[in-house]
Protein backbone atom coordinates (compact mmCIF):
# COMPACT_ATOMS: atom_id res chain seq x y z
CA UNK A 1 0.00 0.00 0.00
CA UNK A 2 1.32 3.44 -0.91
CA UNK A 3 2.20 5.61 2.02
CA UNK A 4 1.37 9.30 1.99
CA UNK A 5 3.94 11.57 0.34
CA UNK A 6 6.40 13.40 2.62
CA UNK A 7 5.70 17.03 3.51
CA UNK A 8 8.55 18.46 1.41
CA UNK A 9 7.25 16.72 -1.74
CA UNK A 10 3.75 18.08 -1.09
CA UNK A 11 5.10 21.59 -0.48
CA UNK A 12 7.22 21.37 -3.64
CA UNK A 13 4.20 20.26 -5.73
CA UNK A 14 2.05 23.03 -4.23
CA UNK A 15 4.74 25.65 -4.88
CA UNK A 16 5.84 24.71 -8.41
CA UNK A 17 2.74 23.09 -9.96
CA UNK A 18 -0.45 23.89 -8.06
CA UNK A 19 0.14 27.53 -7.06
CA UNK A 20 1.08 28.90 -10.53
CA UNK A 21 -1.82 27.12 -12.26
CA UNK A 22 -4.35 27.96 -9.55
CA UNK A 23 -3.32 31.62 -9.52
CA UNK A 24 -3.34 31.89 -13.32
CA UNK A 25 -6.77 30.27 -13.69
CA UNK A 26 -8.25 32.32 -10.84
CA UNK A 27 -6.82 35.54 -12.28
CA UNK A 28 -8.22 34.89 -15.78
CA UNK A 29 -11.58 33.86 -14.35
CA UNK A 30 -11.95 36.83 -12.00
CA UNK A 31 -10.65 39.39 -14.49
CA UNK A 32 -13.09 37.97 -17.05
CA UNK A 33 -15.99 38.17 -14.60
CA UNK A 34 -15.14 41.73 -13.60
CA UNK A 35 -14.84 42.71 -17.29
CA UNK A 36 -18.27 41.24 -18.06
CA UNK A 37 -19.76 43.09 -15.08
CA UNK A 38 -18.22 46.39 -16.19
CA UNK A 39 -19.50 45.93 -19.75
CA UNK A 40 -22.99 45.19 -18.41
CA UNK A 41 -22.89 48.22 -16.10
CA UNK A 42 -21.64 50.75 -18.64
CA UNK A 43 -23.18 49.52 -21.88
CA UNK A 44 -26.20 47.76 -20.52
CA UNK A 45 -25.34 44.70 -22.63
CA UNK A 46 -25.02 41.30 -20.99
CA UNK A 47 -22.47 39.27 -22.92
CA UNK A 48 -22.98 35.48 -22.57
CA UNK A 49 -19.27 34.74 -22.34
CA UNK A 50 -19.03 33.09 -18.91
CA UNK A 51 -18.33 29.70 -20.47
CA UNK A 52 -15.65 31.10 -22.77
CA UNK A 53 -13.90 32.68 -19.77
CA UNK A 54 -14.00 29.40 -17.82
CA UNK A 55 -12.47 27.45 -20.72
CA UNK A 56 -9.85 30.16 -21.23
CA UNK A 57 -8.91 29.92 -17.54
CA UNK A 58 -8.22 26.18 -17.88
CA UNK A 59 -6.17 26.73 -21.05
CA UNK A 60 -4.10 29.45 -19.38
CA UNK A 61 -3.58 27.24 -16.30
CA UNK A 62 -2.15 24.47 -18.52
CA UNK A 63 0.15 26.85 -20.38
CA UNK A 64 1.35 28.57 -17.18
CA UNK A 65 1.99 25.20 -15.51
CA UNK A 66 4.11 24.04 -18.43
CA UNK A 67 5.95 27.38 -18.50
CA UNK A 68 6.51 27.54 -14.73
CA UNK A 69 8.10 24.08 -14.81
CA UNK A 70 10.97 25.73 -16.73
CA UNK A 71 13.50 23.31 -18.17
CA UNK A 72 11.74 20.51 -16.30
CA UNK A 73 8.56 20.99 -18.34
CA UNK A 74 6.76 17.77 -19.30
CA UNK A 75 6.04 18.85 -22.85
CA UNK A 76 8.32 20.95 -25.08
CA UNK A 77 6.37 23.73 -26.78
CA UNK A 78 7.54 22.43 -30.16
CA UNK A 79 7.64 18.61 -30.59
CA UNK A 80 11.23 17.48 -30.24
CA UNK A 81 11.76 13.97 -31.54
CA UNK A 82 9.30 11.94 -29.50
CA UNK A 83 5.90 11.16 -31.09
CA UNK A 84 4.07 11.78 -27.80
CA UNK A 85 5.22 15.40 -27.83
CA UNK A 86 2.36 15.96 -30.29
CA UNK A 87 -0.05 15.12 -27.45
CA UNK A 88 0.60 18.64 -26.13
CA UNK A 89 -0.78 20.05 -29.37
CA UNK A 90 -3.71 17.64 -29.17
CA UNK A 91 -4.46 18.90 -25.66
CA UNK A 92 -4.15 22.51 -26.88
CA UNK A 93 -6.47 21.74 -29.82
CA UNK A 94 -9.06 20.25 -27.46
CA UNK A 95 -9.08 23.34 -25.24
CA UNK A 96 -9.16 25.55 -28.34
CA UNK A 97 -12.10 23.64 -29.83
CA UNK A 98 -14.00 23.87 -26.54
CA UNK A 99 -13.34 27.61 -26.55
CA UNK A 100 -14.82 27.91 -30.06
CA UNK A 101 -17.73 25.57 -29.25
CA UNK A 102 -18.67 27.77 -26.29
CA UNK A 103 -18.90 30.96 -28.30
CA UNK A 104 -22.61 31.88 -28.37
CA UNK A 105 -24.23 31.06 -31.69
CA UNK A 106 -21.78 28.31 -32.69
CA UNK A 107 -23.91 25.44 -34.01
CA UNK A 108 -21.26 22.87 -34.89
CA UNK A 109 -19.67 22.45 -31.46
CA UNK A 110 -20.29 18.71 -31.19
CA UNK A 111 -19.03 18.12 -34.73
CA UNK A 112 -15.80 19.95 -33.83
CA UNK A 113 -15.46 17.96 -30.62
CA UNK A 114 -15.96 14.66 -32.46
CA UNK A 115 -13.40 15.46 -35.16
CA UNK A 116 -10.88 16.67 -32.56
CA UNK A 117 -11.42 13.51 -30.48
CA UNK A 118 -10.56 11.39 -33.53
CA UNK A 119 -7.49 13.43 -34.41
CA UNK A 120 -6.30 13.45 -30.79
CA UNK A 121 -6.60 9.66 -30.56
CA UNK A 122 -4.66 9.30 -33.83
CA UNK A 123 -1.80 11.51 -32.62
CA UNK A 124 -1.71 10.23 -29.05
CA UNK A 125 -1.82 6.45 -29.50
CA UNK A 126 1.71 5.34 -30.39
CA UNK A 127 2.41 3.62 -33.70
CA UNK A 128 3.33 0.31 -32.02
CA UNK A 129 -0.05 0.20 -30.25
CA UNK A 130 -1.87 1.09 -33.48
CA UNK A 131 -0.17 -1.81 -35.28
CA UNK A 132 -0.84 -4.23 -32.40
CA UNK A 133 -4.57 -3.48 -32.31
CA UNK A 134 -6.35 -1.55 -35.05
CA UNK A 135 -9.33 -0.90 -32.81
CA UNK A 136 -7.39 1.39 -30.48
CA UNK A 137 -7.99 4.57 -32.49
CA UNK A 138 -11.76 4.13 -33.07
CA UNK A 139 -12.33 2.99 -29.49
CA UNK A 140 -10.24 5.81 -27.98
CA UNK A 141 -11.87 8.40 -30.31
CA UNK A 142 -15.31 7.18 -29.29
CA UNK A 143 -14.40 7.19 -25.58
CA UNK A 144 -13.05 10.73 -25.73
CA UNK A 145 -16.03 11.97 -27.77
CA UNK A 146 -18.63 10.30 -25.52
CA UNK A 147 -17.06 11.49 -22.22
CA UNK A 148 -16.52 14.96 -23.67
CA UNK A 149 -20.08 15.17 -25.01
CA UNK A 150 -21.60 13.80 -21.79
CA UNK A 151 -19.73 16.30 -19.61
CA UNK A 152 -20.83 19.12 -21.92
CA UNK A 153 -24.44 17.91 -21.86
CA UNK A 154 -24.58 17.73 -18.04
CA UNK A 155 -22.51 20.90 -17.56
CA UNK A 156 -25.06 22.94 -19.52
CA UNK A 157 -27.80 21.77 -17.13
CA UNK A 158 -25.92 22.19 -13.85
CA UNK A 159 -24.36 25.62 -13.59
CA UNK A 160 -22.07 26.70 -10.78
CA UNK A 161 -18.77 25.35 -9.53
CA UNK A 162 -19.73 21.76 -8.68
CA UNK A 163 -19.14 20.14 -12.08
CA UNK A 164 -15.75 21.88 -12.35
CA UNK A 165 -14.86 20.71 -8.85
CA UNK A 166 -15.96 17.15 -9.68
CA UNK A 167 -13.65 17.17 -12.70
CA UNK A 168 -10.85 18.66 -10.57
CA UNK A 169 -11.14 15.54 -8.40
CA UNK A 170 -11.18 13.46 -11.58
CA UNK A 171 -7.95 15.07 -12.77
CA UNK A 172 -6.47 14.54 -9.29
CA UNK A 173 -7.28 10.84 -9.80
CA UNK A 174 -5.54 10.93 -13.18
CA UNK A 175 -2.48 12.43 -11.45
CA UNK A 176 -2.53 9.60 -8.88
CA UNK A 177 -2.76 6.93 -11.60
CA UNK A 178 0.17 8.54 -13.46
CA UNK A 179 2.17 8.53 -10.20
CA UNK A 180 1.55 4.83 -9.59
CA UNK A 181 2.48 4.08 -13.21
CA UNK A 182 5.78 5.97 -12.60
CA UNK A 183 4.89 8.50 -15.28
CA UNK A 184 5.84 11.64 -13.40
CA UNK A 185 5.85 14.02 -16.38
CA UNK A 186 2.21 13.31 -17.20
CA UNK A 187 1.40 13.46 -13.47
CA UNK A 188 2.52 17.11 -13.59
CA UNK A 189 0.15 17.93 -16.47
CA UNK A 190 -2.78 16.27 -14.68
CA UNK A 191 -1.90 18.38 -11.63
CA UNK A 192 -1.99 21.55 -13.77
CA UNK A 193 -5.49 20.59 -14.92
CA UNK A 194 -6.71 19.78 -11.40
CA UNK A 195 -5.35 23.07 -10.03
CA UNK A 196 -6.91 25.09 -12.87
CA UNK A 197 -10.30 23.43 -12.43
CA UNK A 198 -10.13 23.82 -8.65
CA UNK A 199 -9.52 27.55 -9.10
CA UNK A 200 -12.45 27.88 -11.52
CA UNK A 201 -14.76 26.01 -9.13
CA UNK A 202 -13.75 28.12 -6.15
CA UNK A 203 -14.14 31.37 -8.11
CA UNK A 204 -17.54 30.23 -9.40
CA UNK A 205 -18.76 29.57 -5.85
CA UNK A 206 -17.39 32.89 -4.61
CA UNK A 207 -18.85 34.94 -7.45
CA UNK A 208 -22.02 32.82 -7.85
CA UNK A 209 -21.19 32.27 -11.50
CA UNK A 210 -20.93 29.25 -13.82
CA UNK A 211 -17.63 27.45 -14.38
CA UNK A 212 -19.07 24.18 -15.69
CA UNK A 213 -17.55 24.77 -19.14
CA UNK A 214 -14.10 24.49 -17.56
CA UNK A 215 -14.92 20.88 -16.73
CA UNK A 216 -15.85 20.18 -20.36
CA UNK A 217 -12.51 21.58 -21.50
CA UNK A 218 -10.57 19.25 -19.19
CA UNK A 219 -12.24 15.91 -20.03
CA UNK A 220 -10.45 15.29 -23.35
CA UNK A 221 -6.97 16.28 -22.10
CA UNK A 222 -7.21 14.05 -19.04
CA UNK A 223 -8.14 11.02 -21.17
CA UNK A 224 -5.17 11.86 -23.41
CA UNK A 225 -2.88 11.76 -20.35
CA UNK A 226 -4.30 8.40 -19.28
CA UNK A 227 -3.88 6.97 -22.80
CA UNK A 228 -0.26 8.14 -22.93
CA UNK A 229 0.50 6.72 -19.50
CA UNK A 230 -1.18 3.39 -20.30
CA UNK A 231 0.71 2.95 -23.55
CA UNK A 232 4.12 4.33 -22.66
CA UNK A 233 4.71 3.09 -19.11
CA UNK A 234 6.79 -0.02 -19.46
CA UNK A 235 6.89 -1.41 -15.91
CA UNK A 236 3.46 -0.18 -14.77
CA UNK A 237 1.59 -2.57 -12.50
CA UNK A 238 -1.53 -0.37 -12.53
CA UNK A 239 -4.43 -2.49 -13.86
CA UNK A 240 -6.36 -1.41 -16.96
CA UNK A 241 -9.58 -1.08 -14.95
CA UNK A 242 -8.03 1.74 -12.89
CA UNK A 243 -7.37 3.72 -16.08
CA UNK A 244 -10.91 3.01 -17.31
CA UNK A 245 -12.59 3.96 -14.02
CA UNK A 246 -10.78 7.32 -13.87
CA UNK A 247 -11.10 8.09 -17.58
CA UNK A 248 -14.79 7.23 -17.77
CA UNK A 249 -15.74 8.64 -14.34
CA UNK A 250 -17.43 11.76 -15.84
CA UNK A 251 -20.01 9.42 -17.43
CA UNK A 252 -21.40 8.94 -13.91
CA UNK A 253 -22.68 12.52 -14.20
CA UNK A 254 -25.41 11.15 -16.49
CA UNK A 255 -27.07 9.74 -13.36
CA UNK A 256 -27.86 13.33 -12.41
CA UNK A 257 -30.34 13.30 -15.28
CA UNK A 258 -32.07 10.06 -14.16
CA UNK A 259 -35.70 10.85 -13.18
CA UNK A 260 -35.46 9.97 -9.47
CA UNK A 261 -32.09 11.55 -8.88
CA UNK A 262 -32.90 14.57 -11.02
CA UNK A 263 -35.64 15.66 -8.62
CA UNK A 264 -33.34 15.39 -5.59
CA UNK A 265 -30.37 16.86 -7.43
CA UNK A 266 -32.39 19.83 -8.63
CA UNK A 267 -32.93 20.81 -5.03
CA UNK A 268 -29.93 21.78 -2.91
CA UNK A 269 -27.97 18.61 -3.32
CA UNK A 270 -27.09 18.84 -7.02
CA UNK A 271 -23.51 19.93 -6.39
CA UNK A 272 -22.84 17.32 -3.73
CA UNK A 273 -24.41 14.63 -5.93
CA UNK A 274 -22.24 15.61 -8.94
CA UNK A 275 -19.05 15.60 -6.87
CA UNK A 276 -19.92 12.29 -5.20
CA UNK A 277 -20.81 10.58 -8.46
CA UNK A 278 -17.43 11.39 -10.02
CA UNK A 279 -15.37 11.06 -6.85
CA UNK A 280 -16.60 7.54 -6.01
CA UNK A 281 -15.15 5.63 -9.01
CA UNK A 282 -12.05 7.83 -8.91
CA UNK A 283 -11.44 7.05 -5.22
CA UNK A 284 -11.99 3.35 -5.86
CA UNK A 285 -9.53 3.34 -8.78
CA UNK A 286 -6.88 5.26 -6.85
CA UNK A 287 -7.23 2.98 -3.83
CA UNK A 288 -6.89 -0.07 -6.07
CA UNK A 289 -3.76 1.40 -7.72
CA UNK A 290 -2.31 2.14 -4.26
CA UNK A 291 -2.76 -1.51 -3.30
CA UNK A 292 -1.78 -3.20 -6.58
CA UNK A 293 1.01 -0.84 -7.65
CA UNK A 294 2.25 0.88 -4.49
CA UNK A 295 4.52 3.89 -4.86
CA UNK A 296 7.09 4.51 -2.18
CA UNK A 297 8.15 7.96 -1.06
CA UNK A 298 10.39 6.67 1.72
CA UNK A 299 13.93 8.02 1.94
CA UNK A 300 15.37 4.49 1.87
CA UNK A 301 14.01 4.13 -1.64
CA UNK A 302 14.36 7.76 -2.60
CA UNK A 303 14.34 7.89 -6.35
CA UNK A 304 16.86 10.58 -7.09
Amino acid at each position, binding site marked *: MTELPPTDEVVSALKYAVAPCFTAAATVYLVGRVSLSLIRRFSGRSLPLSAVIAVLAVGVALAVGNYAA*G*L*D*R*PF*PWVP*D*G*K*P*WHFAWWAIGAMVGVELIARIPGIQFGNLLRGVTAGLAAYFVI*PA*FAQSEARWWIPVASLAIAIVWGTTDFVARKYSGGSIAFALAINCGGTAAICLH*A*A*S*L*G*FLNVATFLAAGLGACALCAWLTRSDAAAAATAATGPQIVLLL*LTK*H*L*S*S*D*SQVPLDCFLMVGLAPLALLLLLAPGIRRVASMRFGGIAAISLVATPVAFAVLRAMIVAP*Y*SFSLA*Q*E*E*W
Partner: protein
Amino acid sequence: MRFVMGLTTAALCCVVAFAADTKFPLTGENSKIEFTGTKKEGKHDGGFKKLTGTATITGIDAATAKLEVVIETESLWSDDAKLTGHLKSPDFFDVKTNPTAKFVSTKVEATKTGHVIHGDLTINGKTKAIHFPAAIVVADGKIAIQADFTIDRTEFGMTYGQGKIDDKVAIRLKVEAKS
Protein backbone atom coordinates in the same frame (compact mmCIF):
# COMPACT_ATOMS: atom_id res chain seq x y z
CA MET B 1 62.07 -19.14 -60.45
CA ARG B 2 59.14 -21.38 -59.51
CA PHE B 3 60.45 -21.49 -55.97
CA VAL B 4 60.58 -17.68 -55.75
CA MET B 5 57.05 -17.34 -57.16
CA GLY B 6 55.75 -19.93 -54.74
CA LEU B 7 57.42 -18.17 -51.84
CA THR B 8 55.98 -14.82 -52.91
CA THR B 9 52.48 -16.30 -53.24
CA ALA B 10 52.78 -17.89 -49.81
CA ALA B 11 53.97 -14.61 -48.31
CA LEU B 12 51.07 -12.72 -49.92
CA CYS B 13 48.62 -15.30 -48.59
CA CYS B 14 50.09 -14.82 -45.11
CA VAL B 15 49.76 -11.04 -45.34
CA VAL B 16 46.17 -11.38 -46.54
CA ALA B 17 45.49 -13.86 -43.74
CA PHE B 18 46.99 -11.53 -41.13
CA ALA B 19 45.12 -8.53 -42.48
CA ALA B 20 41.75 -10.28 -42.56
CA ASP B 21 38.93 -8.85 -40.46
CA THR B 22 38.25 -10.54 -37.15
CA LYS B 23 34.75 -10.21 -35.80
CA PHE B 24 34.05 -10.34 -32.08
CA PRO B 25 30.38 -10.85 -31.24
CA LEU B 26 29.20 -8.61 -28.41
CA THR B 27 26.44 -9.67 -26.01
CA GLY B 28 25.09 -8.69 -22.62
CA GLU B 29 27.28 -11.41 -21.11
CA ASN B 30 30.65 -10.24 -22.45
CA SER B 31 29.88 -6.52 -22.58
CA LYS B 32 28.78 -4.31 -19.70
CA ILE B 33 27.32 -0.85 -20.21
CA GLU B 34 26.59 0.88 -16.92
CA PHE B 35 25.75 4.43 -15.94
CA THR B 36 25.67 6.63 -12.86
CA GLY B 37 23.23 9.51 -12.55
CA THR B 38 23.99 12.12 -9.92
CA LYS B 39 22.36 14.99 -8.08
CA LYS B 40 23.48 17.19 -5.20
CA GLU B 41 22.47 14.79 -2.46
CA GLY B 42 23.15 11.45 -4.06
CA LYS B 43 23.62 9.14 -7.01
CA HIS B 44 22.14 6.03 -8.57
CA ASP B 45 23.73 3.28 -10.64
CA GLY B 46 22.19 1.37 -13.51
CA GLY B 47 22.87 -0.33 -16.79
CA PHE B 48 21.57 -2.55 -19.55
CA LYS B 49 21.37 -6.34 -19.42
CA LYS B 50 20.82 -7.06 -23.10
CA LEU B 51 22.76 -5.88 -26.12
CA THR B 52 24.00 -7.26 -29.41
CA GLY B 53 26.72 -6.15 -31.74
CA THR B 54 30.16 -6.73 -33.17
CA ALA B 55 33.66 -5.42 -32.79
CA THR B 56 35.64 -5.83 -35.98
CA ILE B 57 39.44 -5.62 -36.07
CA THR B 58 41.69 -5.77 -39.10
CA GLY B 59 44.82 -7.69 -38.15
CA ILE B 60 45.73 -6.93 -34.55
CA ASP B 61 45.77 -3.14 -34.81
CA ALA B 62 43.27 -1.76 -32.29
CA ALA B 63 43.09 1.48 -34.24
CA THR B 64 41.24 -0.40 -36.99
CA ALA B 65 38.46 -1.36 -34.58
CA LYS B 66 34.90 -0.88 -35.73
CA LEU B 67 32.16 -1.13 -33.16
CA GLU B 68 28.46 -1.54 -33.65
CA VAL B 69 26.26 -2.07 -30.60
CA VAL B 70 22.47 -2.23 -30.31
CA ILE B 71 21.15 -1.97 -26.75
CA GLU B 72 17.73 -3.26 -25.73
CA THR B 73 16.44 -0.38 -23.60
CA GLU B 74 13.76 -2.57 -22.00
CA SER B 75 16.61 -4.46 -20.28
CA LEU B 76 17.49 -1.34 -18.29
CA TRP B 77 18.17 -1.94 -14.58
CA SER B 78 19.00 0.33 -11.67
CA ASP B 79 19.64 0.08 -7.94
CA ASP B 80 16.01 1.08 -7.20
CA ALA B 81 12.93 -0.64 -8.67
CA LYS B 82 10.92 2.60 -8.59
CA LEU B 83 13.68 4.43 -10.42
CA THR B 84 13.90 1.65 -13.03
CA GLY B 85 10.22 2.20 -13.86
CA HIS B 86 10.72 5.95 -14.15
CA LEU B 87 13.87 5.60 -16.28
CA LYS B 88 11.89 3.41 -18.72
CA SER B 89 9.05 5.97 -18.86
CA PRO B 90 8.68 8.75 -21.47
CA ASP B 91 10.52 11.11 -19.08
CA PHE B 92 13.80 9.31 -19.82
CA PHE B 93 14.45 6.36 -22.17
CA ASP B 94 10.84 6.04 -23.40
CA VAL B 95 11.46 2.33 -23.99
CA LYS B 96 8.06 1.62 -25.50
CA THR B 97 8.63 4.18 -28.26
CA ASN B 98 12.36 3.55 -28.58
CA PRO B 99 13.07 -0.11 -27.77
CA THR B 100 16.71 0.16 -28.86
CA ALA B 101 19.65 2.51 -28.46
CA LYS B 102 22.63 2.26 -30.80
CA PHE B 103 26.31 3.10 -31.02
CA VAL B 104 28.25 2.90 -34.27
CA SER B 105 31.92 3.86 -34.26
CA THR B 106 33.18 6.02 -37.10
CA LYS B 107 36.87 6.19 -36.23
CA VAL B 108 39.35 4.94 -33.62
CA GLU B 109 42.41 7.06 -33.01
CA ALA B 110 45.56 5.82 -31.32
CA THR B 111 46.87 8.26 -28.70
CA LYS B 112 49.90 8.25 -26.39
CA THR B 113 47.85 6.81 -23.54
CA GLY B 114 45.44 4.55 -25.41
CA HIS B 115 42.75 5.21 -27.95
CA VAL B 116 39.90 7.60 -28.63
CA ILE B 117 36.72 6.11 -30.05
CA HIS B 118 34.58 8.38 -32.23
CA GLY B 119 31.05 7.40 -33.17
CA ASP B 120 27.36 8.10 -33.41
CA LEU B 121 25.22 7.41 -30.36
CA THR B 122 21.46 7.10 -30.86
CA ILE B 123 19.20 7.29 -27.80
CA ASN B 124 15.53 8.23 -27.85
CA GLY B 125 15.70 8.48 -31.63
CA LYS B 126 18.29 11.27 -31.39
CA THR B 127 21.74 10.68 -32.91
CA LYS B 128 24.75 12.64 -31.66
CA ALA B 129 28.41 12.32 -32.57
CA ILE B 130 30.45 11.54 -29.45
CA HIS B 131 34.03 10.57 -28.70
CA PHE B 132 35.61 9.13 -25.60
CA PRO B 133 38.98 7.77 -24.43
CA ALA B 134 39.24 3.99 -24.24
CA ALA B 135 41.76 1.26 -23.58
CA ILE B 136 41.60 -1.35 -26.36
CA VAL B 137 43.68 -4.51 -26.21
CA VAL B 138 43.60 -7.18 -28.92
CA ALA B 139 45.49 -10.40 -28.17
CA ASP B 140 45.09 -14.18 -28.31
CA GLY B 141 41.83 -14.02 -30.24
CA LYS B 142 40.27 -11.72 -27.66
CA ILE B 143 39.38 -8.06 -27.52
CA ALA B 144 39.15 -6.04 -24.32
CA ILE B 145 37.75 -2.53 -24.28
CA GLN B 146 37.40 -0.36 -21.21
CA ALA B 147 36.12 3.22 -21.16
CA ASP B 148 34.79 5.77 -18.67
CA PHE B 149 33.20 8.91 -20.02
CA THR B 150 30.20 11.19 -19.67
CA ILE B 151 27.33 12.15 -21.93
CA ASP B 152 24.82 15.00 -21.65
CA ARG B 153 21.40 13.34 -21.21
CA THR B 154 19.58 16.50 -22.35
CA GLU B 155 21.12 16.11 -25.83
CA PHE B 156 19.12 12.89 -26.10
CA GLY B 157 15.75 14.35 -25.12
CA MET B 158 15.98 13.44 -21.43
CA THR B 159 15.16 16.78 -19.83
CA TYR B 160 13.18 15.56 -16.80
CA GLY B 161 14.44 16.98 -13.49
CA GLN B 162 16.80 19.52 -15.07
CA GLY B 163 18.28 21.66 -12.34
CA LYS B 164 17.69 18.90 -9.78
CA ILE B 165 19.34 15.94 -11.50
CA ASP B 166 22.73 16.55 -13.16
CA ASP B 167 22.73 16.70 -16.96
CA LYS B 168 26.03 14.80 -17.19
CA VAL B 169 25.72 11.04 -16.80
CA ALA B 170 28.80 8.88 -16.24
CA ILE B 171 29.05 5.86 -18.54
CA ARG B 172 31.24 2.81 -17.93
CA LEU B 173 31.95 0.41 -20.77
CA LYS B 174 33.69 -2.95 -20.33
CA VAL B 175 34.02 -5.50 -23.11
CA GLU B 176 35.85 -8.85 -22.98
CA ALA B 177 34.93 -10.78 -26.12
CA LYS B 178 36.35 -13.76 -28.00
CA SER B 179 36.29 -14.09 -31.79
